[in-house]
């Protein structure tokens, strides 16, 4: 590989490869760059040209999206929903995974298969009965209902990753604790949970991306404008400001920013987690 690699990278072909890599990187980044620049323009500037910088950078556009467009409210809703969904998935998922990985009981294989089945069929196809169920228990159009649905929908993935991780941890640590008379809850919380932290981080990141970016489930389960998540809020904002692209782009950038920041600091977990958990 090294020798071959050297050959392929010598001279002109090496330059060509870099050119291709940079060209594709530019194509990838350009829309986001353009979105940032355009979101600081005045409407007249947008109409005059899409390919110039603003004369004066208009922070006002962001204020309008944040305050008058209610993005501050949507942002809080999204943080609340995403945060609790992550906590729920990690807690319930790791508890179940621990038992599935460590205890032998009748029906264990069937139960594992039952949980994993959720990985194959898109959850979207089950939304109608969930819609009816939420309506009948008074959780339709509530953030709490939405959170419960996210926890349930993402458990399969969490259990898939965490069960494997628990299996890879040597048993000696728990066995010593059992001899000391510790019960399963104490072993789980005090010994096992700290050991699976890396896997929890990966699952947490994936759930964050899925929940934060999701449009479909809020669209189906949330009706009141004030209960919108950020992405659903952007969608409604777009409907009200059809020709005011500077506001729409400012709004779009607000939805992107938190994911981007997290990606900057935890790109390894993003890549690890999302190449295993491809679903949506």
């Amino acid at each position, binding site marked *: 590989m090294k020798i071959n690699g050297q050959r392929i990278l010598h001279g002109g072909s090496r330059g060509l490869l870099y050119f291709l890599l940079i060209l594709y990187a530019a194509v990838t980044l350009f829309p986001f760059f353009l979105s940032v620049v355009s979101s600081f323009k005045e409407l007249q500037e947008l109409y005059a040209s899409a390919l110039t910088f603003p004369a004066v950078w208009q922070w006002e556009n962001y204020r309008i999206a944040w305050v008058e467009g209610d993005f501050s409210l949507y942002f809080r809703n999204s943080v609340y929903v995403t945060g609790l969904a992550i906590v729920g998935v990690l807690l319930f998922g790791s508890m179940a995974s621990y038992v599935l990985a460590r205890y032998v009981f009748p029906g264990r294989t069937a139960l594992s298969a039952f949980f994993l089945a*959720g990985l194959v069929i898109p959850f979207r196809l089950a939304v109608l009965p969930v819609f009816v169920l939420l309506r009948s228990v008074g959780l339709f159009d509530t953030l709490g209902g939405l959170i419960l649905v996210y926890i349930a929908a993402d458990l399969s993935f969490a259990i898939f990753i965490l069960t494997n991780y628990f299996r890879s941890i040597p048993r000696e640590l728990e066995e010593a604790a059992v001899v000391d008379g510790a019960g399963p809850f104490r072993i789980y919380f005090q010994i096992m949970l700290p050991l699976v932290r890396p896997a929890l981080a990966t699952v947490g990141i994936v759930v964050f991306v899925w929940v934060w970016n999701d449009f479909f489930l809020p669209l189906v389960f949330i009706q009141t404008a004030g209960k919108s998540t950020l992405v659903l809020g952007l969608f409604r904002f777009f409907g009200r400001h059809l020709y005011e692209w500077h506001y729409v782009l400012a709004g779009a950038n607000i939805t992107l920013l938190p*994911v981007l920041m997290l990606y900057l600091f935890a790109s390894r977990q993003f890549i690890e987690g999302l190449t295993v958990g491809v679903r949506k």
Partner: protein
Amino acid sequence: MRHKKRALLLLLPALAVYSLFVAYPYINSLLYSFTDWMGVGPKQFVGLRNYVHLFTEPRLARPFWRALSHNLLLFGVSMLFTVGLGLSFAFILSSRRLKGRGFFKWVYFLPYILPALSAGFIWRYIFHPRWGALNEALRSLGLGDWTHAWLGELNLAFPTIMSVWCLRLTGLYILFFMAAMLAIPEELRDAAKVDGCGRLKTIWYIELPLLRPTLLLLTLLNFITSFNAFDMIYALSDLSGAPLGQSDVLTLFFYRTAFGSVHDPFGEGLGMGAAVASVMALLLIGVSLLFFKAIQKSQVEY
């Protein structure tokens, strides 16, 4: 044993939430599809009538088949793109002498992790016929004849959407292929080299055949993703798959059929919506099973 019984309690929360909100709804969805329920009032059992209507009544069958064909087209085109570009870039990036590999990986993966709806709106602005960056760039290059209403013209709208879709997914496939290539032992390449294989021959005769299981798995994933397409298409067209249904896909059709009755008078109700969902689920399960078999057969041991 008491210890074990108490441990099983740890399973309960996950089991309860998952059964109630995932497993039970899947089954219930199938049951709904045999009724004419509108979401309120009594359910009337109608047997297979929803399915018969879905496949035979033009007002349902025409958009259904058209949406299905668009999903298949999306799958085919995104296979060409993501596998073609993904493999090429993965081969380039797996050269160890290359500088900045981490940076390129980071950039290529970026579109995949950002909200598809937001990215869709940004692209919608770029494609805007009057104010968009694409037409303006074409005009300033003296290519004014090439300008289009990219998302408004009947034969251009879906190809435009598909290109954005592919751009979003390619980074993911680059990473998949890079991971798979890393798993191929160095000795195999060295042996090929000793036998007089050049770099391209090594790729063609050694690496590609070994990537077969990965390719099969990615084909399946691509299929599932293509049938899940919703956010990006909604952002670049609308709920009806504008223009004139040229960008319609099954999830949009499903949403309209099921919830149209709640939001507007044209919907068909939850029964018909559930029938659409069941057909889609059946299709996905069937294709998944086929692929799982093929993948198992093609496993390689190093």
